[in-house]
């Protein structure tokens, strides 16, 4: 241990100040990192005890990723010291981090899809110019690692053939193969089914038992509570608290993250469904590669009802959404809106869907819902620019468009309140508010929402959820697609589960359990329950 006393910089809520039995794996002191005007990390202190699972939570932009990037050698801190296993370290790049036994599993996997597991594991860690000896050595080593940590993966399987959960194991194996003692996982469960997430947690516990240290970055408080020993909370570039997980609660953590108390559960009255507004019949959709992604899907949504589509990302939800909203041609099937079949053929189907009373908050606001190089007011009329409200005939009435934009900013509390600012410069939550304000403005009969709170701060999440519920209570039909099961469960009145392009199950949100939904999301329940 270094001789520097750490007591003087402990904050009131900071626990685990005493040196733990196994010593500290990581000690960060007064870490500062600025990006121009943005002070991403302010005087960060963090101590991670060896052989523990340490969670780091915080809103988007709180500085978690920056901090981990400094630890992994992607960025260099402006000031501050890093000690690894008690020794001061200068981590210039990821190679240096690996040499110190720090491995990272990124949110987006860094795997070569058409290589085998084995080839991916040795990639960048080959022994010599010839590949065979490396592969042989890796096979033996992998065998050992797999038994030691119960990380079963077929070393000869091709990456593109194995599941996302297995791919993640390969990432973990890659780090272990390189001798990682400290493993950083960045939002590891975002792409996993609940079952796969449980498997991951089992693996992480095994790693801990074997003396490895795990740093888990996540925004899912449930996971923090389930698996970590200690948890650090970051807010606006500062480390606001480090507490023992056993001594805290999700509500308390959320409050620390946001800086005020937050309602984690959506408050809503029971649904009062009216007549059917949206009906989808035998919809078949193929993607750009010609692969059938939606396989004969049928469902309907009534007025005053939120129907959530749960499922692991990539099971056809995106294609379903894009098809209903006129973004993508259907192979066959019909979409009936308010009793009238919608013609969605051609590349202007979205215009006809809008004209018929369908509004769409797309899954990917930066790629689809906004033109980020356009100013806020130009985005406020996206999709509605042809309306007479924004100028008669062919002319665009800029004054009217700007007035509408100012109105949106006011009602949805968009910050900064600048209609001339490029939308790329707004935060994720404010961008989403800009899209929502525009789509809700026209009093649509049906609102289709994809990932409403992806990349959105907790404070804004609450606001967005309330807006969606308000629209439901106004008698609109809402189709919600989200990969966040918690969001689906708390917002929806009825839940459909999609797996492999089909709706494999249906449940009432009030009664459905997470385990039940999780099984359906994994494709275990094949039959659709009568509703």
């Amino acid at each position: 241990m270094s001789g520097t006393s750490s007591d003087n910089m402990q904050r009131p809520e900071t626990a685990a100040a005493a040196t733990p039995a196994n010593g500290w794996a990581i000690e960060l002191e007064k870490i500062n990192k600025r990006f121009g005007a943005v002070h991403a990390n302010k005087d960060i202190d963090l101590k991670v005890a060896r052989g523990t699972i340490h969670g780091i939570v915080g809103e988007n932009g709180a500085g978690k990723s920056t901090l981990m990037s400094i630890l992994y050698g992607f960025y260099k801190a402006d000031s501050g010291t890093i000690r690894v296993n008690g020794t001061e370290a200068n981590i210039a790049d990821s190679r240096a981090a690996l040499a110190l036994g720090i491995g990272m599993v990124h949110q987006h996997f860094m795997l070569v899809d058409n290589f085998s597991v084995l080839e991916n594991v040795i990639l960048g860690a080959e022994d010599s110019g010839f590949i065979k000896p490396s592969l042989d050595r890796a096979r033996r080593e992998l065998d050992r690692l797999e038994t030691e940590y119960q990380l079963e993966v077929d070393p000869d399987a091709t990456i593109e053939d194995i599941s996302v959960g297995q791919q993640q194991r390969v990432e973990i194996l890659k780090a272990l193969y390189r001798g990682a003692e400290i493993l950083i996982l960045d939002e590891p469960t975002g792409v996993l089914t609940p079952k796969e997430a449980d498997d991951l947690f089992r693996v992480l516990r095994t790693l801990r038992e074997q003396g490895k240290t795990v740093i888990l970055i996540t925004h899912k408080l449930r996971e923090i509570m389930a698996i970590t020993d200690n948890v650090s909370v970051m807010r606006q570039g500062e480390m606001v608290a480090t507490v023992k997980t056993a001594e805290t609660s999700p509500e308390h953590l959320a409050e620390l993250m946001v800086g005020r108390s937050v309602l984690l559960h959506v408050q809503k009255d029971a649904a009062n469904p009216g007549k059917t507004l949206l009906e989808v019949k035998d919809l078949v959709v193929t993607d750009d590669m010609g692969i059938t992604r939606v396989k004969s899907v049928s469902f309907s949504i009534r007025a005053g009802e939120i129907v959530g589509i749960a499922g692991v990302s990539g099971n056809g939800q995106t294609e379903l959404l894009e098809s209903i909203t006129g973004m993508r041609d259907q192979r066959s099937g019909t979409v009936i809106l308010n009793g009238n079949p919608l013609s969605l053929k051609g590349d202007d189907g979205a215009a006809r869907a809008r004209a018929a009373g369908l509004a769409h908050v797309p899954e990917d606001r930066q790629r689809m819902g906004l033109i980020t190089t356009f100013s806020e007011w130009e985005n406020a009329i996206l999709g509605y620019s042809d309306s007479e409200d924004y100028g008669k005939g062919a002319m665009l009435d800029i004054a009217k468009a700007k007035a509408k934009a100012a109105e949106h900013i006011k009602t949805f509390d968009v910050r900064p309140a600048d209609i001339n600012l490029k939308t790329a410069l707004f935060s994720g939550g404010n961008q989403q508010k800009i899209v929502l304000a525009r789509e809700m403005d026209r009093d649509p009969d049906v609102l289709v929402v994809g990932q409403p709170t992806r990349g959105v701060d907790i404070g804004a999440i609450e606001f967005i959820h309330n807006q969606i519920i308000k629209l439901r209570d106004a008698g609109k039909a809402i189709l919600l697609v989200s990969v966040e099961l918690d969001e689906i469960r708390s917002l929806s009145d009825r839940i459909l589960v999609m797996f492999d392009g089909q709706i494999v199950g249906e449940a009432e949100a009030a009664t459905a359990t997470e385990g039940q939904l999780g099984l359906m999301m994994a494709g275990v329940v094949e039959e659709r329950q009568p509703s």
Partner: protein
Amino acid sequence: MSALRPLPRWADLALLPVLNLLLAVLVSGLVVLMIGQNPLTAIWAIITGAFGNGYNIGYTLYYATNFVFTGLAVALAAHGGLFNIGGNGQAYVAGLGVILVALALQDTHWLIVAPAALVAAAVFGGAWAFIPGYLQAKRGSHVVITTIMFNFIAAALMIYMLNRVLKPAGVSGPESAMIAETGRMPKIGSFFAPFNYTPVNLSIFIALLALVGVYFLIWRTKFGYALRAMGQNPTAARYAGISNSKMIIITMTLSGALAGMVAFNEVLGVQNRLVLDFVADAGFVGIAVALMGRNHPIGIGLAALLFGALYQGGNELQYVISGLDRTVVVIIQALVILFTGAMEGLFRPGLQRTFMLFSPEQKAEAVSRETVGKES
């Protein structure tokens, strides 16, 4: 995310192009020096050659007229994310429309011939760009490939038309019959004496109208909004219900129609007949003009004037300095295109740093930005 703060608007629009132009002039001067001539004399010869007297200015404006049309053609397409490099072919084919209409109506009056020829230029030029537009919209063939191919097809087509169809009996060269006197559009020199004996004609007013019109089209109409939306983000445009395929076809057609105006200037305003290669690569110069003018009509007007001056001044240069022939002028023009167009961003980072150092409160920031990566 870029670490450097964007430049103030005036620096972006005025200072940067001027710096680029100065660099081009400097390197051109070195070339002239290597040949053994005095660069200052050469530059002065270009300037006086372009603006020295009414005759020179008339020629400069005549060239600039063409470059305004082709520059706008490239810029309009560029706002929709389309790169129309077929301005040459579109202008060439438009010449066919102009001459057919003009010859048919030549015995009426030029006031009847001119509007009809204008429409014909737009229709023929537009049609020649419609085909690549249609092919991209419906078949996925990229306009960069098809428009350049259509330049060659246009060249071959026009040689055929001139030799086999339009050439009157008794004429040896590949050119059409002359338009009768009654059908010829007057040049500006005929009522404004300083421009006497120069080719500048009424087309220049069409060019000015086009500059204003394109500005309004892009920034003041719903079509322009849709066009820019598609250009910035085709996926978001489709999300907004804008039909990309329809927009591509319309935009390419409009772009071709603008390029076709070159034929109006050349065939009806200057030559009074259709000759081989009358476009003289104005279509390609238009790419440089649009690039330098930032696809904005004001910038395009200024850039077209600059290139007009270079063309005219360059022509005069060979008469003033015997050692410098047309080839040197082409080198200078190429350098201007290189530095103002292709290497437009050369000074940007340095200028941004300079600007930040000059504002005291940003100085510390500028220093700390040296080692910046992307934000978390």
